């Protein structure tokens, strides 16, 4: 396990999120406090409707919290309101996301599915492709770089999706049930891969999962129930 650098890459402080108003109000997240450090792989677990995806969306700057404070890679991005105007650019620069399903763009081959992120970040076409191939080789799927998503197996597609999440060398990687569509053996391979990435890229990785088989792969587990962290205040892994 990586020895954490004490400067958190993800810091969530007193985060609240509710939907609706008055009697229709639903408190999705209540007073969430958590920190994740570079090199850590942490799990976010809980039953359906516990608020895992809501929390992940808030950290990914997809969903605006109701109140609280969110710091990503040392930069406060939310303090009762967004402090950044261009949240997509923020995601592009700081966050890599691995979806439950690979969500590869069906009209791009393996290389281009990875290169598209670099292209959006302003890399030249040739540099983006060269780096994409490097990443695919790093994830042992380089031999499928020309294959279209429909031609890839589930495991191969998930590796290409992971390569896409890593393309811009983000400090924060969020993974939403990355092992759900895979069998247990492939699920463990993916988790080992995430561990390798966390160490190699000094990234903080948060994995939402229901999979009890991969619990031993996490440095720390945050358990959510009814929008609250079960262990209450800031849970620091390591």
């Amino acid at each position, binding site marked *: 396990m990586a020895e954490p650098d004490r400067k958190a890459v993800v810091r969530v402080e007193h985060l609240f999120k509710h939907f609706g108003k008055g009697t229709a109000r639903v408190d999705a997240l209540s007073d969430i406090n958590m920190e994740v450090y570079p090199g850590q792989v942490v799990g976010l677990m809980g039953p359906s409707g*516990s608020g895992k995806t809501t929390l992940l969306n808030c950290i990914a700057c*997809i969903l605006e919290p109701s109140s609280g404070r969110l710091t990503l890679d040392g930069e406060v991005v939310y303090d009762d309101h967004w402090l950044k105007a261009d949240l*997509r650019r923020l995601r592009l620069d700081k966050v890599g*996301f691995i979806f*439950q399903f690979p969500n590869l763009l069906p*009209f791009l081959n393996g290389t281009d599915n990875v290169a598209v*992120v670099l292209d959006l970040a302003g890399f030249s076409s040739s540099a983006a492709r060269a780096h994409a191939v490097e990443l695919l080789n790093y994830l042992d799927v380089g031999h499928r770089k020309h294959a279209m998503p429909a031609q890839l197996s589930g495991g191969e597609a998930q590796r290409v999706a992971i390569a896409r999440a890593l393309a811009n060398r983000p400090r924060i990687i969020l993974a939403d049930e990355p092992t759900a569509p895979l069998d247990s053996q492939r699920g463990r391979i993916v988790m080992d891969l995430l561990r390798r990435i966390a160490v190699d890229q000094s990234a903080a990785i948060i994995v*939402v999962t*229901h999979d009890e088989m991969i619990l031993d792969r996490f440095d720390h587990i945050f358990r959510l129930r009814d929008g609250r962290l079960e262990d209450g205040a800031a849970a620091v892994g390591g």
Partner: protein
Amino acid sequence: MNLAYRDIKHNLLRFILTNFGLSLLLGIVIVITGVYGGLIDDALRQARAANADLWVVEAGTNGPFAESSRIPGDTRELVSRVYGVERAGAVTYQSVQTELNGKPLRLFLIGFEPGRPGGPRKLVAGREILRSQYEMVVDGSAHLALGQEVPLGTHGHKFTVVGLMRKEVTSSGDPVGYITLRDAQALQFELAPPAERREAARGGSPETSNQINAVIAKVSPYVPIKEVATALARWKHLTTLTQAQQETLLSKFVIEKARNQQRLIMVLLIIVSAVIIALIVYTLTMDKVRSIATLKFVGAPDRTIIGLIVQQALSMGIFGYFLGLALVLIFQPYFPRRLVLDPASVATVFVITIVVCLAASTLGIRLALKIDPAEALAGAG
């Protein structure tokens, strides 16, 4: 990385089939433009064929195309003597219908004086009219061959085709034929034999056939046309029109209704095209909801998403337009009436297509911009 191009390449067959349908629609828009151009060109062609500076017609009329005009045959001699008139020719215009090989044949006959203004312009085959009677020069669209005989008039005289022309049709699509003035006058003004006999039995005086519809005048380049027109206007039994006035009458009044009808059809077709393009773009965007959500999630700005949709809409319009144009050009010779596709009107349809594509893509853009990036997360708990 051009995402629109990649998506098209990935779904090439769907793109081609969709565009083939669109090209047929845009092809019809181009055809209507061609028919519209042909209508105006054909209408003006009759007046321009005469190569006139001035038209002398019956007093108080807008003849001979907009309404009937009948003036004495010797008017040409009067006009010739006016200062500034270089050459003058008497003409008649009439529509005839005859039967040839069991099929009806409609012709627009122009009677002219050989060697004087008002005759046919350029022949593509055969020769000019040399004999004083029963020879005819006709447009190729009548599908008559050189040497073929065509029965015309109540007396059943047969006219021999001696020359062929191209692109000489009326605004209603009838082929134009030229015969001598004498033959034309006989066809237009002489009574059929039974009617002639009845008229004689009644004791009525035989009606003179020495009448014409108009006199065409060519003015000397050294004399202002207006000056000659003013001189001719002094004769109260005649009206003088300049070539420009004649063309205005033809293009603005004679074919106005047909022109408005075609304009209406064209506008309706453009609206239908816009709706179809909008629906295609919308459907294509619907198919890409998850991809667009993923792109937004990974940080793609709105301009990338808009670019994807607009580029696809434009590709569709441009591809559909040029395929439609190619189909029209291939099948142009088989159309029942002349299509005039001048570069300006073809370019106008292209610009309209582009504008329609841009306008139609707004529906898809609206949908795309509304897509929540969180839709890429579907399935999480």
